[in-house]
């Protein structure tokens, strides 16, 4: 616990640099990454990340120093070049974009690795640490880096703020954007520059290989939680910032742990959790919804059966043995027992000895289901022209689904008919 307090107080300047640096990097990549994701350019982000490596090496070879300014310029140039190559290949040949990206990515990265090896073999003392760009060096961030990161983050934020509606429109419908006269090419140029910028800065924390993860994963996670681009940008940056913070903390308490990979592990976990937990779009909530629907259906089917047994004996509150219920309608016996117990807890049935009988509430709910079933059968035959022997299965579904408003409308439309197509009486309100 102490370590967490020490860490969060940011008293140690080294920790301060790492923490603030990591957060700046991850949050700003996430913001730009949201638009990369929405523009369906996720793969392009990966290509740029790999393609900056030769630029960094070239910057080093030409300048002979590890001065970040030279390396960044080099990275920017080859990052751009890779994009131009992808576009050129897709435009001028029959090769599709994904193939072109794969091609460009591996060629640029391969060249970068060769150059890196050559530099390392050359015995130039200044070269040590260049391989940081492969896996990142978040734990070694210094004050100078922060200045650069801070500036870049401000530029990114400003561009996204100013061009928010243009970026969104372009992602949704580019042809339309062009048709209303927006300078589409120039806006795309700005966006691409922002991606390159975010990548060039980001690889210093997490490295070439993992860069695409911090660019795209926060956006992918955020998408599960919202239907608004603005909220999505905000959530992605929060997720990004949190993973930056968590990554820095983990490598603080366990110094052997690299920051960059931990950032990626944390953000991937967030994405994973979102996938399972998010409301509506998430897997779990979908399962929960399906389960509750299934329960309602089972409940109502049993109530319906009890009600129908009541119709036969003209006594709705008479107890029935489970065997009688099973005789009227086939259920797995264990399922029936568990549904009956649930209905008992909910107050729809009560138990007398080994037999079950409807309560007042259970009776009126069973009655409603039977009523809707028969009304719907009638509606399908009279208004939709479906043969009477085909309407039963449809009605079996609709009886659980209809809202009270639609129920009233159905009654009114059919004008409270007395019997259904099979001459069974349609029950309204309290019988007995």
């Amino acid at each position: 616990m102490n370590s967490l307090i020490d860490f969060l107080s940011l008293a140690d300047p080294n920790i301060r640099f790492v923490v603030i640096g990591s957060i700046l990097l991850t949050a700003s990549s996430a913001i730009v990454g949201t638009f990369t994701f929405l523009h369906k350019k996720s793969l392009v982000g990966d290509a740029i990340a790999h393609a900056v490596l030769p630029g960094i090496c070239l910057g080093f070879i030409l300048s002979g120093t590890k001065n970040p300014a030279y390396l960044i310029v080099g990275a920017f140039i080859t990052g751009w070049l890779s994009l131009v190559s992808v576009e050129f290949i897709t435009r001028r040949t029959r090769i599709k974009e994904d193939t072109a990206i794969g091609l460009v990515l591996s060629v640029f990265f391969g060249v970068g690795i060769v150059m890196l090896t050559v530099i390392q073999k050359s015995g130039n003392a200044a070269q040590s640490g260049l391989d940081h760009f492969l896996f990142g060096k978040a734990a070694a961030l210094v004050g100078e880096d922060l200045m650069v990161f801070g500036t870049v983050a401000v530029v990114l934020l400003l561009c996204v703020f100013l061009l928010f509606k243009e970026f969104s429109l372009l992602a949704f419908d580019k042809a339309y954007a062009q048709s209303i006269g927006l300078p589409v090419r120039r806006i795309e140029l700005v966006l691409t520059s922002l991606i390159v910028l975010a990548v060039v800065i980001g690889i210093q924390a997490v490295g070439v290989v993992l860069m695409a993860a911090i660019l795209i994963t926060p956006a992918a996670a955020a998408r599960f939680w919202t239907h608004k681009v603005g909220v999505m940008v905000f959530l992605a940056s929060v997720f990004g910032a949190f993973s930056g913070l968590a990554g820095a903390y983990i490598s603080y308490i366990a110094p052997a742990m690299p920051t960059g990979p931990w950032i990626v592990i944390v953000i991937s976990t967030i994405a994973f959790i979102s996938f399972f937990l998010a409301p509506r779009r998430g897997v779990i909530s979908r399962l929960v919804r399906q389960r509750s629907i299934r329960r309602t259906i089972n409940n109502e089917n049993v109530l319906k059966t009890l009600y129908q047994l009541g119709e036969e004996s003209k006594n709705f509150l008479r107890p029935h043995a489970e065997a009688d219920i099973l005789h009227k309608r086939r259920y797995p016996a264990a399922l029936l027992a568990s549904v009956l117990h649930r209905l008992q807890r909910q107050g729809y049935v009560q138990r007398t000895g080994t037999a079950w009988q409807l309560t007042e509430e259970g009776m009126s709910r069973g009655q409603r289901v039977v009523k809707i079933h028969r009304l719907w059968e009638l509606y399908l035959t009279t208004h939709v022209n479906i043969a009477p022997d085909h309407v039963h299965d449809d009605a079996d579904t609709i009886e659980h689904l209809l809202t009270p408003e639609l129920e009233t409308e159905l009654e009114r439309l059919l004008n409270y008919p007395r019997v259904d197509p099979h001459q069974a009486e349609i029950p309204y309100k309290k019988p007995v």
Partner: protein
Amino acid sequence: MQPDITTTPALEVHDLTVAFDRKPVLWNIDLKLPAGKLIGIIGPNGAGKSTLIKTVMGLLPLSSGYVRLYDQPIDNVRGRISYVPQRESVDWDFPASVMDVVLMGRYGKLGLFRRVRQADRDVALDCLRKVGMEAYANRQISQLSGGQQQRTFLARALAQQADIYFMDEPFAGVDAATEKAIIGLLQAMTEAQKTVIVVHHDLQSVTRYFDWVIMLNTRLVACGPTETTFTQQNLQETYGGKLTLLSDVGDLIRREHFPNREGISKPAL
């Protein structure tokens, strides 16, 4: 073949040829459209109807010819032009509400960097009302039916408050009652001197809906007022038999890497 238009035409297309991958899909189109009319574009699948609209909107490069709107190049009159793309051209799983999409129709008027204002929202809501979608303003676009998507696109175009509208199959997937309501809306617009150009597939309704028709099948078959142009003979020519020779020559141009105009060799798209 085409009657003269005395006033400035809303749209003039002159000797337009458009090619994909060198193969021309529209050959030497010449047409002039009057302002204030409801105009249908008809022709079989692959006739180049969408291509014609996209080219007029400046979304595709032309191999030859020119396009003028209100006697000006398109870039001078963008603010007066509105485009309804085919509904399948976008990914409806985008995170946006119906309102967000309709507001996009205001972006042209707003210009770069500017935020949407309350006035824009009011216009957007009004347009949603016109297409009967006001109840869906806050609905996620991923939860719309095909016909509702189409009406959303229509509302977006209306929100541009343009003078000339190009609509690519606005009635695809729209039910008959809505189609009738929308046609009424479009007819009212033309009475206010707006020009509306609609790609349409249902030949039964052409004479009821349109003042003018453009009949297209890789080349222009006919263009003029519906009662004189929409004839059995023109229909036969538009829909009857494919022009195999024209299409074969197009293939030849692609294979042989011929420029489709001497002297100009525009790169294929």
